[in-house]
């Protein structure tokens, strides 16, 4: 019966190699189309390398010169990168604060068994909808609607509220408000849905026992809901911040890439985009990208912390 009696080395029914086979396409593509360009980005940041008209300057190793330039005041008297980072954070905050307040409120409405909101599916569908709209198109729409000859001004003038059209796209306050409004509209539905899921993930009996213990709904919110929701809230908040740092389409199209007026709505990525345009300033663009990477990396560490804490 025993045809072979020699001891055999047992190797081949291990499936480990299949694991590698299944993940290899991902890593090949990642290495070529993402990792290598990323390394190149960092590499570029140490070189003078740009296009001036038809001539290409560089690449010439300049060490940290690009970073120095990045933190030097420009012709207008301010350090562009600080200003644009500031703009980005400010524009994000303008949209994010109402976004989180309203989303939190809606999430509580939707999950309240006492209120028992009807038509939830409809409301959720409507408030999530702007998230899927092409951001560049959304911005173009706002530009058209709020232009000096656009319907909003037409309405305001014809209703007698104002006598001359408002230059919405010429003033810092209105431009920033419009950008914040668009960001708010695009993201508050998404945030609502995520926070709702977080609240629904909390054991219902917690609320019930708190209520039977005599807590008011405000007390339930601060003593039960918020503490238990915290990890998810922080997760959603920081991912929103990471998204905010990357804000581009809306201000770019709304201000035609100029960040009007006076670069008060120019974001970090718009700045990066300027270097990547005709000038192809890979050196400076690289330096901006590295900065962007560092900022998001720091934020991401917070995300991972909260995820880990949540998993415990």
């Amino acid at each position, binding site marked *: *019966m*025993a*045809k*072979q009696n020699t001891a*055999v080395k*047992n*190797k*081949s*029914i*291990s499936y480990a190699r299949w694991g590698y086979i299944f993940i290899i396409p991902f890593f090949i593509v990642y290495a070529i189309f993402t990792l290598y360009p990323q390394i190149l980005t960092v590499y570029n940041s140490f070189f003078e390398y740009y296009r001036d008209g038809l001539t290409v300057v560089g690449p010439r190793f300049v060490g940290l010169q690009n970073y120095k330039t990045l933190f030097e005041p420009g012709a207008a008297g301010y350090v562009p990168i600080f200003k644009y980072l500031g703009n980005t954070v400010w524009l994000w905050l303008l949209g994010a604060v109402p976004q989180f307040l309203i989303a939190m409120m809606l999430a509580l409405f939707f999950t309240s068994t006492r209120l028992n909101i009807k038509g939830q599916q409809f409301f959720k569908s409507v408030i999530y909808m702007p998230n899927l709209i092409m951001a560049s198109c959304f911005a173009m729409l706002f530009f058209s609607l709020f232009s000096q000859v656009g319907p909003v001004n037409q309405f305001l003038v014809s209703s007698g509220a104002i006598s001359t059209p408002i230059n919405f796209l010429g003033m810092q306050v209105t431009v920033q408000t419009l950008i914040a409004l668009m960001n708010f509209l695009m993201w508050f539905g998404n945030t609502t849905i995520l926070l709702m899921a977080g609240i629904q993930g909390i054991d219902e009996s917690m609320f019930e026992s708190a209520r039977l213990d005599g807590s008011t709904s405000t007390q339930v919110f601060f003593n039960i809901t918020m503490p238990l929701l915290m990890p998810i809230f922080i997760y959603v908040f920081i991912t929103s911040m990471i998204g905010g740092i990357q804000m581009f389409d809306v201000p770019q199209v709304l201000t035609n890439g100029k960040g009007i007026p006076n670069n008060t709505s120019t974001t970090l990525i718009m700045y990066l985009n300027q270097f990547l345009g005709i000038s192809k300033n890979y050196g400076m663009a690289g330096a901006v990208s590295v900065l962007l990477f560092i900022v998001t990396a720091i934020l991401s560490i917070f995300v991972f912390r909260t995820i880990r804490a949540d998993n415990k």
Partner: protein
Amino acid sequence: MAEVILKNIKKVYPNSEPKEKKGLFGKKKTEEEKPHRTHHLQITDEGVVAVQEFSLDIKDKEFIVLVGPSGCGKSTTLRMVAGLEEISGGELYIDGNLVNSVEPKDRDIAMVFQSYALYPHMTVYDNMAYSLKIKNVPKDQIDKKVREAAEILDISQYLNRKPKALSGGQRQRVAIGRAIVRDPKVLLMDEPLSNLDAKLRNQMRAEIIKLRNRINTTFIYVTHDQTEAMTLGDRIVVMKDGFIQQIGTPQEVFDHPSNLFVAGFIGTPQMNFFDARLALKNGEYYVEIDDISVKLSEEKQKRLREKGVKEQEVTLGVRPEHMNISDKGIEGRIDVTELMGSSCHLHMTIKDKDAIVIVPREGNIENHMGQKIHLDFSGNVAHIFSKEDNHNLEY
């Protein structure tokens, strides 16, 4: 239709590579996968030894049951036979061929999983036909085989349903059907009944016995339930902590447990154990406990004599049904009496330990809580275990 020979099979899980197997169903399995957590498995430099020194010759068409508590290595052994788990050492032969490195698909085995593992997106028919389709069996032949198997298992009317639309028992049948359509050389079953409720389990157990008579194949069946083992197996392999404890027919294992563990594991209610003394008087062996001294049966005398067993302190094991109420003997207090139809179970405290005694109802004098009674037993049902290593002194 094949012999299966396991020679000194061993399984080591390297420490560095923690098994990460999570499934919705595999709760039982997860436990088995991480044996080192709850059990006393040997840990060597190589890792955790889940199975070792496993040698067994399984005859053609034999029904073998691997039984033991969770983490004993029974499922791991089965999975090694299936080819789902690498064999760390030893040799495995199916039908005379060494198959250690052969992939499961080339071993000609089938397996029924505890979770059934039915493909949710396929109908019952397609589930059963899948393995044949892969082998490119002609369509009409597939059809014939699937319908035959469905007939045997009484699931013909569900062939067009998806698994979701079936009850637990029906899914179980489909899982078995999927295994038998292929006429495998060996049919492996991994706790196939433990996801069913008690009533269905009894029914399916009978079905498996019927099935076994209808199809000609070798069965290897894993369970933690000793009743299943006793009723199904031609031979039972009792395992604990990665080692085989005993191999034998159900009767052998029941009548002659090779050690304290097997004695306690097989048989329900559990065997009672007492501290006693094995005495040798005039060349005859006696067990002495309290004020009685019971002479062992001739058979036992012979075996003990052959082994030259000396006088010593022992653990005495007597099954509940082998104890009788008597005037003298082991003294104990009745805690609870349970009337079980034809017999009566007395839950007792004997020498500060729990024990159960089964007495016939007729002979049962009005027993009540707190009453003190005496028990004895005859010499042919006393099991004598060494105090040192818990093995049965007869063997």
